[in-house]
């Protein structure tokens, strides 16, 4: 995947993610509609590739307006990732040379790797995660399970122990999976499956769409800097 294709694919996936987020606010309060209806229009323009530099700039401004309106992110980590992807895209458009464009887009790729690695690191240094207790707590009393029946999973500590270690090991070895094309593709499929499971079990649908919008950057980054001869 060359640089231009990766940036274009990021625009399309990001536009889709923003359109999906925006539609969810169409029936909300008037001051939210005023933010999200224009954001939906801009997201569609980004998807079809119309004046993408200006459109991304306006989307970034609308992201700042959202931060002000909700006094922080509306949807935690997914809003922060949205701003990060948009920030890097804007830097790509503003960069004066190809080298600076690659640095900006490469920053997104590195942050994507960090998003898995550091999430794994902060878990594995915590004894409650290592024992599987933390994942039991998530299902037993946290706000995340999307239905009451999912709380029953907390009564299967062995299954959750295996799941907790599976998640931690995958997140920690993610950087190593960049070393070959096939391992990276498999890693991204597994990671997308992980986000899909989080969306189903915890209702975190926005994380799924926004994280996969950053995947083209890592596919390009690997070809450009790691497996390039």
């Amino acid at each position, binding site marked *: 995947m060359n640089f231009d294709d990766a940036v274009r694919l990021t625009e399309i996936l990001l536009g889709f993610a923003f359109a999906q987020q925006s539609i969810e606010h169409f029936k909300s309060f008037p001051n939210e509609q005023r933010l999200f209806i224009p954001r939906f229009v801009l997201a569609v323009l980004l998807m079809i590739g119309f004046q993408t530099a200006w459109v991304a700039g306006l989307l970034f401004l609308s992201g700042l307006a959202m931060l002000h309106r*909700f006094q922080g992110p509306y949807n935690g980590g997914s*809003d922060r990732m949205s701003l990060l992807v948009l920030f890097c895209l804007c830097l790509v458009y503003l960069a004066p040379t190809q080298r600076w464009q690659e640095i900006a887009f490469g920053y997104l790729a590195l942050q994507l790797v960090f*998003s898995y690695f550091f999430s794994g690191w902060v878990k594995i240094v915590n004894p409650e995660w290592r024992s599987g207790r933390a994942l039991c707590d998530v299902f037993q009393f946290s706000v995340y399970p999307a239905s009451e029946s999912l709380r029953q999973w907390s009564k299967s500590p062995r299954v959750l122990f295996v799941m907790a270690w599976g998640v931690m090991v995958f997140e920690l070895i993610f950087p190593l999976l960049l070393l070959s094309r096939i391992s990276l593709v498999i890693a991204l499929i597994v990671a997308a499956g992980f986000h899909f499971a989080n969306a189903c079990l915890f*209702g975190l649908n926005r994380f799924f769409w926004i994280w996969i919008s950053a995947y083209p950057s890592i596919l390009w980054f690997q070809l450009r800097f790691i497996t390039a001869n």
Partner: protein
Amino acid sequence: MFHILKLLLPAVIPSWRFFDVIAPSPRIQFALLNSANAPSDNDYEWCEFRPRPAHLSFLQMLGRMFWNPERNESLFLVSCAERIVQQPTQHSEDEILKRIIAELKTNHSDSTGETTHLQFRLLLVQRQDSRLQQQVVFHSRIQSLSTQDKT
């Protein structure tokens, strides 16, 4: 401007500390009142705001990949509740009151009956050894149901 930059910084230089510790978990409960005078906590019937469904089919989960506004709003209210627990702000309290009132008027207009006011409280649920404990940590102001913020 400085405030917006402070909010933006964790997005462009993230820490990626997802689920590092499982913190005490907030619950939002509300009570419908007949007046603006607050009797003691036990005189109210406290209801959980927007309880989660008993069960979701796989098809419903798939549908929520594309259309999940209620759940995402609930997660935003959890953020507001966490902000109140850390440091109460008018904004977070307003957001929770506004959305409870909107929900009551839209989906439960029959249950409000003769009541004129609303209050919510925050409970923190946490595990202490092997038992779950809950503790009331915040009471909102008492809000008239007729002064819904239209914005």
